[in-house]
């Protein structure tokens, strides 16, 4: 088992939590894990990227080579496209379609979506919308993670356990909302894959 994952988004959008959840779940299953913050994860408003590698064998490089990533998980559509040079030909892109517009020259949304639709394997979902339905916009990142979960080659309940342990000290309500968010994302992808 091996999964090389690029996590992408804009600083402050919560990709650190996604990395923490996948990482915790991986360690619980005694998998090897390497995570590398490639672009200032604490820089608000800028593009951020993290390399996450999981494997049942020891991992060599902290960085994913070009063309080798199995999965790009992005909480923002333009950011999903930024890391295509890392994607393997069989790789999947899972991205939220909700743009984060904090730069004046942000490209036209239709054109961004056209580029995403050109990809051979992708799941595009409005994670904000689904998170709103659950009652917390803050969980949009977890919705996106849920949508990526079928591609992680990991038991779903391990991700749920990780959410419970990571959000535990924020109270039962936060844990439940995030569990719902994870499930909503997963359901979305399953509907796409088996219509």
């Amino acid at each position, binding site marked *: 088992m091996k999964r090389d994952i690029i996590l992408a988004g804009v600083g402050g959008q919560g990709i650190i939590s996604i990395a923490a959840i996948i990482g915790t779940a991986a360690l619980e299953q005694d998998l090897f894990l390497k995570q*590398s913050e490639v672009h200032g994860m604490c820089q608000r408003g800028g593009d951020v990227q993290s390399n996450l590698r999981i494997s049942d064998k020891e*991992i060599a*490089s902290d960085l994913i080579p070009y063309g080798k990533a199995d999965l790009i998980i992005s909480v923002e559509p333009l950011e999903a496209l930024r890391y295509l040079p890392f994607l393997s030909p069989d790789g999947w892109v899972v991205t939220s379609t909700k743009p984060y517009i904090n730069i004046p020259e942000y490209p036209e949304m239709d054109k961004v979506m056209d580029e995403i639709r050109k990809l051979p394997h992708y799941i595009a979902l409005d994670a904000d919308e689904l998170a709103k339905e659950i009652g917390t916009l803050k969980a949009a990142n977890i919705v996106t993670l849920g949508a990526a979960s079928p591609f992680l080659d990991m038991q779903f309940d391990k991700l749920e356990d990780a959410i419970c342990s990571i959000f535990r000290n924020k109270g039962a309500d936060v844990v439940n909302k995030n569990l719902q968010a994870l499930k909503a994302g997963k359901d979305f992808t399953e509907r796409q894959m088996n219509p």
Partner: protein
Amino acid sequence: MVHYGFDFSERYKVPVMLRITTRLAHSRAGVKRRDPRKKNDLKLPEDLHQFVLLPAIARKRYHNLLKMQDLFRQESETSSFNQYMDGPDKSLGIIVCGIAYNYLLENYPDRHVPYPILKIGQYPLPKKMIERLYAECKEILVLEDGYPIVEESLKGLLGKGLKIKGRLDGTIPRDGELNPNIVAVSLGMKNTYGMPVPSLMVGRPPSLCSGCPHIDSFKALNEVLEGLPKGRVFSDIGCYTLGALKPYEAINSCVDMGASITMAKGAADAGLVPSVAVIGDSTFAHSGMTGLLDAVNDKSPITIFILDNGTTAMTGGQDSPAFGKIETICKGIGVEEEHIHVLRPLKKFHKENVKIIKEELAYPGVSIIIPRRECIVAIDKRVREKFKKAAIV
């Protein structure tokens, strides 16, 4: 390695430096923890002159340090951090340091590298191991991240003859971070590629949060300086360094903590008036105060902005050591009270703020402007914690 470093330091009574290059400082992995080592008992130095570096003593200490080099070299030859791994193909020998070893292995999925490898993790360089590699192989490739430190020192260690490939001969780019792809190419392997980035892509540099008090400070400062030739605002490191970028382009330097004040003073003393320093409250507490004293003593005509957002925002919101004391510190250092102004960096006070800044820029001595408003991320955190506490009660 850290355990080993501490033990080494205790044994030889020398400082040991742990050097981590680029990626290593930003990576994490699952690790097995071992039991923490017991803390050493507190004891006073046996040699009471050890840290008295008067010239006569310092000379002796340096002599002793030089005498120890042979021991350090021997340690390097037998250290488990320096490993000679033989390989059948002697057309190339690889010297590899730190994280570059991970990139090297990445290119061999079965983890069998055909070439002899010397993996170096402890200095001084293990001369004998290097000489063996040099004697057995036709060419040497050096893989190290950051500066070509090992590669350059090989010149002193080895005679001329074999070709040494690395950053200095262009086999590997002279600058920039290493990665598995660069290492693959340096080994003559095929590079791998993904898909190109679509042409519509644009950059997304980090930016100040909307609502950040620094924004209002920069707007006021820019308005006051409008029309003057640019390049006179010396600054420092913190969130406000983003003020160098568009759309503000309000500051012109970020060199080391505290340098905003000393550079502005130097420029003013050389005749640049007005000369402005912009420094964060936390950076001011760390190393702005000594420069301020110097400026006050010389009555240098500078205007210093101490941006007081009540926190150390850039590094994650730690307390700022000068919290609640900035005016007192400035007064204590000797800044005249009437030239210390606390401003409210908000749109509605913009005009008033511009007026005060203008007046102080015209004053031929040290002025302090303190735009004070809490960092919005800090407010958010504070409020959330309050609610959390309320929920628990």
